[in-house]
């Protein structure tokens, strides 16, 4: 079986998510006779899509993924999405309009969903009851009982002798949409002062990403109730930090987004040799025999030399890890899941007419290029802000009576003959510029065109938001007139107009 994971770009291959979730299963997959590939979505071309039995779309929340899923579905291969985060169930949150829209749009093309926790599986079950969903736990990198025992014993001995408890916190400190990371540390860090009750001095080391270190978050760190050291995160530093800490502090808040997170931080901590102190939402309950909820209990166990994770308990922990985080086992379960699925029959897509993307307020050049590489149309709307070489670019006259449509060669070639003959080549100012054509239609030629003219377009953002759907309908009406049928998806990288309202996302 050949499995291909689609990621947003090459740089993504170096992120913690990819490292933890995919790189750790690559070797066991290949050992079991399967092949595995990570492919950036921006490298795909319509004419040369690689052959693969299973396609997993990962963290590509844009219109390219929507088109790609359609294309793959039409070729009769298995298509699924690996749902890392829950951006879809917060129905009352207007920030995620575009992501909920993306979810709804891609759902019909999917054969399966993949996620990393039972909580996320349950969420998906509610949102898409018919979608087969498999939990693939984040696998551990290695589980070497001898190394772990060495770290545990050395840290325990040092802590007992010095009465200084080295505590680690590591991870992404921020999220563009949710308060978590360093906010959780700040909100729940008070618990660490209990170390003093037990006669120990806490000493916290924090590893996080530089982007997270804004004034607000630095202020949170500066006001922690325990002495704190700060460094920028790196994989090497994370390994060193965990290996030198008696325990890592893993606070989790109880918002939807956080409760469906994977167990990977606890798994990483335990398999790298530190105890886990959890606070807030009991995300790590599946590992509860090895997870503390109170530092005093942890330090009492330390004094009795009975820490939850110690040489004598490592065998049992190893078994638990194997059942929930062993890469080989996770691979076996995933392959078994894929084998049970039946791909749909290959069909032509689009059956008639054209397919493509209508760019909204906050689209991107990458989407524009990606759509064209997949052989489909990139279409502008009145809301589009970027100046791109669109395949179809309709522009309403000031009086709202005529529509001048600018076309690329691809847009013109797809026109029916009667319209094609009406197009005129646009004189080029730059000889290197691609060929462009124009076509003028009157309002009467497009009966479904909503009342809309350049002059009536209002100025305020809230008014523009109200007009948004009408603008998109106008483009859709134009496309229907031009190509009879069109399968279009909207491209929005953020909620339309939302981010322009001066409100932090």
């Amino acid at each position, binding site marked *: 079986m050949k499995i291909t994971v689609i990621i947003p770009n090459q740089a993504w291959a170096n992120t913690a998510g990819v490292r933890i979730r995919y790189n750790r299963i690559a070797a066991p997959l290949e050992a079991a006779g399967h092949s595995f590939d990570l492919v950036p979505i921006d490298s795909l071309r319509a004419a040369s899509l690689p052959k693969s039995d299973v396609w997993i779309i990962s963290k590509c929340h844009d219109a390219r993924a929507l088109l790609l899923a359609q294309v793959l579905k039409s070729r009769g291969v298995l298509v699924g999405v690996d749902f890392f985060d829950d951006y879809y169930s917060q129905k009352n949150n207007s920030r995620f309009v575009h992501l909920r829209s993306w979810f709804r749009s891609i759902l019909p093309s999917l054969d399966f969903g993949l996620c990393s926790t039972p909580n996320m599986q349950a969420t998906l079950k509610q949102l898409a009851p018919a979608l087969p969903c498999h939990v693939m736990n984040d696998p551990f990198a290695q589980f070497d009982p001898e190394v772990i025992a060495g770290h545990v014993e050395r840290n325990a001995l040092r802590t007992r002798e010095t009465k200084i408890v080295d505590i680690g916190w590591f991870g992404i400190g921020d999220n563009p949409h949710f308060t978590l990371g360093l906010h959780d540390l700040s909100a729940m860090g008070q618990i660490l002062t209990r170390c003093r009750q037990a006669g120990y001095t806490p000493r916290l080391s924090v590893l996080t990403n530089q982007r997270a270190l*804004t004034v607000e978050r630095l202020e949170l760190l*500066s006001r922690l109730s325990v002495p704190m050291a*700060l460094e920028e995160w790196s994989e090497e530093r994370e390994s060193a930090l965990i290996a030198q800490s008696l325990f890592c502090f893993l606070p989790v808040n109880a918002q939807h987004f956080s409760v469906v997170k994977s167990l990977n931080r606890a798994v990483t901590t335990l398999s790298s040799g530190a105890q886990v102190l959890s606070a807030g939402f009991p995300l790590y309950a599946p590992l509860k025999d090895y997870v503390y909820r109170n530092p005093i209990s942890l330090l009492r166990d330390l004094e009795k030399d009975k820490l939850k994770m110690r040489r004598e308990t490592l065998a049992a922990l190893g078994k638990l890890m194997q059942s929930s985080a062993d890469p080989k086992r996770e691979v076996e379960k995933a392959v078994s899941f894929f084998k049970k699925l039946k791909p749909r029959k290959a069909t032509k897509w689009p059956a008639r007419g054209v397919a493509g993307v209508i760019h909204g307020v906050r689209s991107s050049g990458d989407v524009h290029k990606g759509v064209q590489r997949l052989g489909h149309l990139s279409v502008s709307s009145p809301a589009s802000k970027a100046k791109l070489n669109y395949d179809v670019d309709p522009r309403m006259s000031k009086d709202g009576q005529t529509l001048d449509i600018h076309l690329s060669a691809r847009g013109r070639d797809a026109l029916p003959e009667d319209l094609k003959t009406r197009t005129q080549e646009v004189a080029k100012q730059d000889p290197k510029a691609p060929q462009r054509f124009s076509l003028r239609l009157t309002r009467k030629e497009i009966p479904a065109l909503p009342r809309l003219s350049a002059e009536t377009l209002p100025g305020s953002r809230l008014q523009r938001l109200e007009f948004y759907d009408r603008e998109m309908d106008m483009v859709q009406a134009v496309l229907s007139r031009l190509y009879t049928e069109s399968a279009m998806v909207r491209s929005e990288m953020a909620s339309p107009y939302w981010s322009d309202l001066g409100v932090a996302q």
Partner: protein
Amino acid sequence: MTQHLFASPTGATPRETVFLVNLLQDVNILRGLVYLAARETETDLRFLISTAFLKRDAQGIWQREISQIAQDVGAHLNVFGSPLEAFAILQGRSGTLIAASESSLSAHKETSGTFRVAPPGFLRVTLQHGFECVGFLQNREHVRAHGRNITFYADVVCGWQAANTLTAMAPSQRSKLYVTGPSALLQAPRRGPEHPPVDGGMICENLHSVRLTASGNHRAVFMDIFFEYCDDLAAQGKSVTLRPHPGGQYVLKNNVALPDNVTLNNLPMYKVDLPAYAYGISAPSSVVIDMVLAGIPVGVWRDPAGIMDAGNYDGLTEIAGLDDWRAFERDVALRPEMILERQRLFLERSTMVTDPAEVYRRFARLLVAGERLGQGGVTPTAVPEVTPAKISPPVACPDKPLRVLFVANGVIPTLQLSFLKPLAPLLQDGSVVHQIVTADDLIENFGAERASREAGVWFEKQMQAFEPDLIIACRYNSAHAARIAKVAQARDIPLIFHVDDDLLNIPREIGEKKYLVHSNPKRLDSVNLLLKNSDLIYASTDKLKRRLRNLGVRTPITVGQVYCTSRILRLVEPGPVRRIGYMGFDHAHDFEIALPALEQYLEKHPDVEFELFGSIPMPDQLLRFGDRINLVEPVRDYAAFLQKLASRKWDIGICPLAHTAFNTVKANTKWVEYTAAGMATIATRGMVYDDCAADGRGLLIDHDHWFEALEYLTDHPDERYRMAQQAQTHLLLSYSEQQLRDQVLDVFQKAIVTKTAAQQSRSGALAAHTPKTHITTDGLIEWSN
């Protein structure tokens, strides 16, 4: 962020007073406080300077001012471009963090951001930085632009006036208020040679201010009247001085042509001799208050239509059109007391603290409190009610020579290089008169009876007979130390104890004989006595100061930035390495570190000679190299010693230093001496040479790389030549005798100040009367009775 951001999280760090500089005006506001902190606290001083400040100060005027201040007080300098960088600098430190201008306004985001991220061990203090100041006392334009609810991230907010007159202070901030008076009163102007001639009145322009444009084009009106006034004065043969606002600089930035009878004065305010001017005129601005406090008649200009809000200046003499200006000038000449009386009443009503001595006391209390506060959150209520401030008396009268008595074990190299050499010009021109009394004199006169009472009496008489103004015990650890302290106490003169080694912990490695001598309990008693009873300890390095503090020494300690200086005695010579050497006295254990590598090196390079200069015997291992090795006998006179060293023409000098506690606090003397003698230096990394030999001014190595280092410089003669040249450039710039001379004089000054403060504190004079003020050489307002 690539740097490791963190310093010791739990380890005790010395407390610091950190001054945050962001706006150009901040320098003027903070300057007096910096000197006060240097004088009144034991904290390390640091400037934290925003990159925004550096951009604003395009001409570098204020950077030079900061450099001068930092040099005067030995402050560290750091620049930060973002709150993260400020956090990185402050992390692991504690103390008092002071900003001249901080608030929730975006214009202050650099300082407020730093306050927000500052570790909890800092007491954060901001200052009212102008008479009308956002969050304290606002005018109508302030309110329009910023509203009424300005808040501060500071824990303590220092205001000029009583709370009831600070009408713009938000209710949420009032509990933070600590009334100090204007910090500008901590400094009085010193009229230096750069001061332009004082002639007539001082007209101050603040045309950049929003106040002059918000309600009309008052700028043009002001300038029109100013030009007419100048013409008027010119007709009478009179002149006037124009002072641009330090931040705005409107007339300069806009190249406004000025009449011939206008003199420009663009010096920092603390260098302007305001009281010397006949009068002052300004639109509403803090400079009005500066001039009022300077005691000259002041006219507050308001636009003739009366649109501008000048309500906060009610009671002062208001002038508008040209006729008013003329009338004001006439009144200044005929009835100045009338104007001055108005000003007195204005100040009285304002409740502003205007007595410089009281301002000094209040700030001193705050800084001393900040020094004493422990780690953790701090509230203004934690500031102690009263902490007696130390007070500075005048330095020795300039027309009378300063009589300095040096007491030392002998005329030791330290005495020569730390005092006699840098002070030589002053000793020659008679402005400083000195005498040296030594323990060697005791031996000469009393031999084995040198510790006897009789010898002590003689010793004391020698000291008394000189009638010193100041006593310096230089590394003294011989007999009769108590008599030195007694003489100082009896004559009420300052006693400075100069130390350049940890004299309480001389290691055995330095040589058995020397170890036994210096570890004699009687000698240790002498050291302890002088550490305890001196008015000031003058330590050679910061690390030595820390060591003494760790040993429980509570006497004020000052640290010199420069220990040893030298001019260049021999220029670096290019070419192959022909001779290398080690110079040292009783430091055989240090030299032995490099010995194996040296043997190996000499074996490999038969053309290279090695010399050992000093009192260490030539090691047996090197004897086999025959006439390629040479022992140079020590020279006692320091100047002759340096000349001798230069004459040896070594291409490389080596500085191996064992990693001992004793060596950690030593000074970088060897690098200075080798560099002056035209030699490239190879030195042990992680000890005392890391700064001076950094950036290619020497080769810093670990102990297992001596051979490689010698090989490298031998194989790369151009590199050796360049290295030694760079070192000599650095020596010229940073280790001049002038710098050391200034430093020594500053130490004398500090000792006198400390002594007088202690006297007044003991006598209760502070509470008994209100002393008069006077100006010191560095422009600070100080007490005199």
